[in-house]
């Protein structure tokens, strides 16, 4: 199930919206970078755990580059400028990948043998289950980071009001990159898990799959990281149900239809409302 992938991308997006009020469209691009790098490193003979770690490093670095060129310069610019620049990064990442490796689907080797776990008629893939568990642990860690540490307090102050945060002595130019690194790590990890589990990557996977993280974020309530998990699982479930009952062609209609429906009926999301900074 793709739910945990969407949840992790949703967390990356929601962190950026919640703290910086910045809809970061480059996150799906970083997801693609995570997936493509994993494939690339494994193809060059790295063992998969090392390839995954390297892919995370690449994703986090890409996210830092985005920070340098969007947020850093445009805190006081017109409202859409950072959003639009982050979209330009999505296009940049995608086309760089196409330019180097072509737009074809790339396959990874089977890594885990047959690791399915059968209970009655139910087939559960153990790597997928581990991926889900890992993402929940990491999101739990993130929520601890936000609530318990000094960095977390700084981030929450920025989320309330960045001008006040500066007055209170929060060093924005040092703490904001942390948001981008964490967001980049989550998005890249989603890409790594996707590559290892589904063993297929391509340069437009960010557009095809990563953007569904936006649905996860909105359905769960923008700015709320636990909401993003619930949103991701709901989106994953909606996909599975529409494949089962409507056919594979209706998956995108259901996912984005759900997004549009939530925006019209309850724009704060199913679990939103209390969280800070859902406005953009």
């Amino acid at each position, binding site marked *: 199930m793709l739910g945990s992938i969407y949840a992790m991308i949703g967390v990356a997006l929601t962190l950026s919206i919640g703290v910086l009020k910045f809809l970061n469209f480059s996150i799906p691009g970083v997801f693609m970078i995570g997936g493509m790098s994993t494939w690339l490193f494994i193809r060059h003979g790295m063992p998969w755990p090392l390839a995954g770690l390297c892919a995370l490093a690449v994703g986090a670095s890409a996210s830092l580059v985005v920070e340098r060129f969007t947020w850093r*310069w445009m805190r006081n*610019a017109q409202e859409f400028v950072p*959003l639009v620049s982050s979209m330009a990064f999505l*296009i940049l990442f995608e086309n760089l990948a196409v330019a180097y490796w072509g737009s074809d689907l790339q396959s990874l080797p089977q890594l885990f043998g047959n690791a399915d776990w059968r209970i009655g008629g139910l087939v559960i893939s153990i790597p997928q289950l581990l991926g889900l568990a890992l993402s929940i642990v990491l999101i739990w860690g993130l929520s601890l980071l936000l609530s318990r540490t000094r960095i977390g307090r700084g981030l929450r102050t920025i989320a309330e009001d960045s001008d006040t945060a500066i007055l209170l002595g929060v060093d924005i130019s040092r703490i904001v990159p942390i948001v981008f690194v964490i967001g980049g790590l989550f998005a890249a990890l989603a890409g790594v898990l996707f590559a290892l589990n589904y063993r297929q990557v391509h340069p437009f996977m960010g557009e095809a799959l990563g953007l569904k993280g*936006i649905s996860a974020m909105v359905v769960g309530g923008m700015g709320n990281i636990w909401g993003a998990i619930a949103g991701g699982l709901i989106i994953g479930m909606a996909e599975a149900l529409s494949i089962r009952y409507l056919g594979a062609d209706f998956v*995108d209609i259901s996912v*984005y*239809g759900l*997004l*549009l429906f939530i925006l019209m009926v309850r724009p704060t999301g199913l679990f939103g409302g209390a969280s800070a900074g859902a406005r953009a």
Partner: protein
Amino acid sequence: MSGYLEGVLVLLAINVVYAYAAFLPIAAGQLNLGVAGFAAVGGYASAYLSTTLALSPLIAIPLGGVAAGLVGLGVAVPVLRTRGIYLALATFALGEIVRASILNLEVVGGAAGYPVTAFIRLPTIAMFALGVTVLVWLLFATRFGIAITAVHDDERVADLMGLDVRAFQVAAFTLGSVIAGIGGGLYAHHFSYIEAQYFSISLSISIVLYVLFGGTQSVIGPLLGAAVFTLLPELLRGSAQWRYVLFAAILIVVMVIRPQGLITGAQIRRLLGLRSSASQKERAA
């Protein structure tokens, strides 16, 4: 005229139409990330009308625009109750829904694409592009243009000055959708074949990028942005991917150096009002 030149000019004209489609809501402070979706509605609706009902493209294309406008109105009215980023997200969702729906709509060919029998050439397309440009230009010489800039700059004060903020936002957005639909209709009738994949989120994003690159404070900005990003790649050699890479990189750098876009309203006024600014300097001295 060589086929190559005609091809470039057709692309330029269609991109200009798309750019104004994205510009109108941006001028009122709303971001439409689903321009491609509205273009798809207009493109498919007009293609269907001209193919099955044998309507002239000159009638079918504006009707396609109306269809796109109705969809735009249907989204803007409920979503504009809330603010800011929500409309951008809703239009993004709508664009993806339109694309995915067309893939499943067998009456217009589904995933196989839709052949269009009627064909229009550069003069017709240029005429439409000119018409749209003049229309937007005129609109910005009226109180409407002033009002949507006012709404963009300060909603609260605009409201207290008696402006119906939401009505102006809905009007700007809907009119933008109509123009997007016309752009889609032009594309469909020139290339004789349309498929859902063309109307992707990448197209929507590129269009918004043109407009922000050119500048959102004046009606010249979108024209300039569309022109630069249609003509520049033609001057460059290399594959389509590298052109996109360059396009994105240039945009990112321009947004860092000049976030207001290439041309601003103040510059236009300075250009147009040489005499009055000269006399202003005299008085100040």
